[in-house]
């Protein structure tokens, strides 16, 4: 292939991926913003003013902000010390412990919300055991939602802290160790150096928390995401839904952009940097770290799953439950598989482009992807409906299962692109150049040189996309065509009028799909650690 031909193939593939990204991820959001500004009779500015002056809006804003800030604080207080422990304490079976501690993040948040509802709700396990309702005022509250979301999102802070600590130059710590005890070195040298990453993780958790729909919806906390859903799904007021989505979107974009700038390229690249010196270890805190990890695991994983299992034990026939939800389960598995595959197909080229462009452009791409990933699910749902619910050819997609796949693409292509961009950056450009000099065309070089080297990244991105798509609720519940359902939609919609045992059984089933591959991963890590 000539050089001209090579460039043409490359340009065509990357342009196709870029177009798919623009249509699937950017357009719905752009359309939503345009609609919300245009829907005001007097133009955009008065809409914002009205939003800020309306007392109900102010309450929503206050609730959303408190939920985000409380969750970020709680998740950091739990996650950061665990991250320190994973990075610097010689814990037994650390790999398995890490996988187990990540698990709550991989479960759909509403499953966790459901578990705490069945434990502390007005007819929950605690109320039944003590004979009166003692916990429900806490459960159905902002504090309750904050507690649940902190237990869902703490792994993000934990991972960010661990990665940041591993990247701290060991010499800096050794220089401090010459005069100070390890605890003082941690507090004055190590943690301040890791602070940008920990802060960025906290900001990201803030955004994810205010973007969350399932948990506040279940625990009856009025925040923007639930109001957007109510405006659209219950009141059929598309204009109100788009206007409500706007402040949520603005806050998400601003906070995420700050986080991405703060942490720079460290957000995703987790490879250890070249560093000399030996990092400080805090093995004196080993016992405390083990006890703390176990307590967190108990609260964030064991208790919720045990509650669901206890509730589900009341079903007469688990098989009947599965049969009754067969369509939802099959749909979920099929759509999540198709969605994850399409997500990776688009994201791999975006990731490749990000890895090969200049540093500045790469940073901009990272910020854009983080912002898009943090965009609230209900906002994306409203944007997708506005974009595709049109007369003519475009509208042919609306009302089909393809809308669910489009929702998965809109939500998860950015995160997959971040993961794959980091993977491709580990493949030197010289490998492609060597293939080109050897006579290979660009596609051939990609197929036989680049893609095989990032297969682990591709598998990781696919798994992440599958897990997220399988548990997606906020956008799916808005865009799902009449009659079509997925497991999350089915669980969420039958909660009010179905015996808890059946709902809990379905939630456990949902968890099992996530846990089977996770348990396999944990087992693999354990075997490697024992060896």
């Amino acid at each position, binding site marked *: 292939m000539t050089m001209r031909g090579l460039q043409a193939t490359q340009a065509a593939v990357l342009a196709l991926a870029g177009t798919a990204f623009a249509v699937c991820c950017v357009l719905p959001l752009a359309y939503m913003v345009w609609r919300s500004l245009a829907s005001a009779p007097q133009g955009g500015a008065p809409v914002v003013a009205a939003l800020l002056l309306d007392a109900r809006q102010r309450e929503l804003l206050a609730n959303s902000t408190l939920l985000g800030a409380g969750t970020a604080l709680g998740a950091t207080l739990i996650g950061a010390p665990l991250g320190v422990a994973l990075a610097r304490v010689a814990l037994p079976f650390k790999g398995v412990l890490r996988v187990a501690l990540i698990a709550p993040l991989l479960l759909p948040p509403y499953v966790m919300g459901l578990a705490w509802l069945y434990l502390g709700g007005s007819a929950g396990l605690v109320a039944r055991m003590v004979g009166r309702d003692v916990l429900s005022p806490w459960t159905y509250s902002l504090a309750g939602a904050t507690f649940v979301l902190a237990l869902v999102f703490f792994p993000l802070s934990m991972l960010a802290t661990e990665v940041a600590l591993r990247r701290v130059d060991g010499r800096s710590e050794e220089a*401090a*160790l010459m*005069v100070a*005890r390890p605890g003082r070195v941690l507090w004055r040298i190590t943690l301040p150096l890791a602070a940008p990453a920990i802060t960025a993780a906290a900001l990201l958790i803030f955004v994810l928390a205010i973007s969350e729909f399932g948990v506040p919806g279940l625990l009856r906390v009025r925040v923007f995401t639930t109001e957007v859903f109510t405006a659209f799904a219950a009141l059929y007021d598309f204009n109100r839904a788009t206007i409500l989505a706007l402040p949520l979107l603005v806050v998400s974009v601003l906070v995420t952009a700050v986080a991405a700038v703060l942490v720079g390229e460290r957000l995703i690249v987790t490879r250890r940097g070249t560093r000399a010196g030996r990092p400080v270890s805090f093995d004196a805190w080993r016992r405390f770290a083990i006890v703390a990890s176990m307590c967190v695991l108990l609260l964030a994983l064991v208790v919720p799953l045990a509650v669901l299992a206890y509730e589900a034990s009341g079903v007469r026939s688990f098989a009947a439950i599965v049969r009754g939800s067969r369509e939802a389960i099959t749909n979920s598995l099929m759509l999540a598989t198709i969605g994850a595959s399409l997500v990776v197909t688009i994201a791999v080229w975006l990731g490749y482009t990000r890895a090969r462009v200049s540093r500045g452009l790469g940073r901009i791409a990272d910020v854009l992807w983080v912002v898009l990933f943090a965009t609230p699910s209900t906002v994306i749902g409203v944007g997708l409906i506005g974009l595709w619910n049109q007369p003519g050819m475009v509208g042919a997609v609306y009302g089909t299962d393809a809308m669910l796949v489009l929702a998965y693409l809109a939500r998860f292509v950015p995160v997959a692109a971040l993961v794959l961009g980091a993977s491709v950056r580990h493949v030197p450009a010289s490998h492609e150049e060597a293939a080109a000099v050897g006579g290979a065309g660009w596609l051939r070089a990609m197929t036989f040189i680049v893609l095989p080297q990032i297969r682990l990244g591709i598998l990781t991105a696919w798994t992440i996309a599958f897990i997220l798509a399988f548990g997606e609720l906020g956008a799916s519940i808005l865009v799902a065509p009449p009659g079509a359902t997925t497991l999350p939609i089915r669980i969420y919609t039958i909660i009010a009028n179905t015996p808890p045992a059946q709902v809990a059984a379905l939630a456990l089933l949902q968890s099992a799909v996530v846990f089977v591959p996770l348990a396999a991963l944990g087992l693999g890590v354990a075997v490697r650690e024992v060896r």
Partner: protein
Amino acid sequence: MSVPFVRVRDVTKRYGTHTALMALSLDVGLAESVVVLGPSGCGKTTLLRLLAGLEVPHQGEIWLAGRQVAEPGRNLVPPHERRIGFVFQDLALWPHLTVREHLTFVMGSVRVPKSQRPQQTRETLGLVRIERLAHRYPHELSGGEQQRVALARALVGRPRLLLLDEPFSSLDPDLRATLRSELSRLRRALELTMIYVTHDREDAAVLADRIVMMREGQIQSIAQDSRPR
């Protein structure tokens, strides 16, 4: 030499299958300056790290000021209790602290009374001639200025022993010569015991009371400096 201030006895240190130090013994007297010369990988840095307590010997003993600080497989005294100043090859300045904060951190760690800290900071900055840089961060300093900060940090805690691991290796020859002579002046003024690791013979010529030649983890020769004092 009377009782040596630093005593290294038959110390062996291995990294996996590689033996970095092999039954090495070395005595250094109080206020003596020893320069350790040798090619890369000969074990010079390992020797300093063992003295600092950043590594544990596999065999042998290490004594500082008459007190045993390490035995085979175990450090008996942690680094921060050995009262050692260490200048690392890459300096290891803390990017989030100003020059003054570097010194304050050290003084806080070694429990210098708060009332004495401003005076001690001024004196130390004056010693290395960087009084005007007190409020700067490391990235705002030139290479030579950073070297002086690293030296100030090592000195401000009033250490008994100063260890330097090729501190001037990344500097141009002129600056290197300047800092070398300043270090010599400081060492004499403060009567410091010093072990200086380098592969530069000029460093050795200016700074050493004794020159220790190392090769493949062992001492090859020890030469007394014969310059007029």
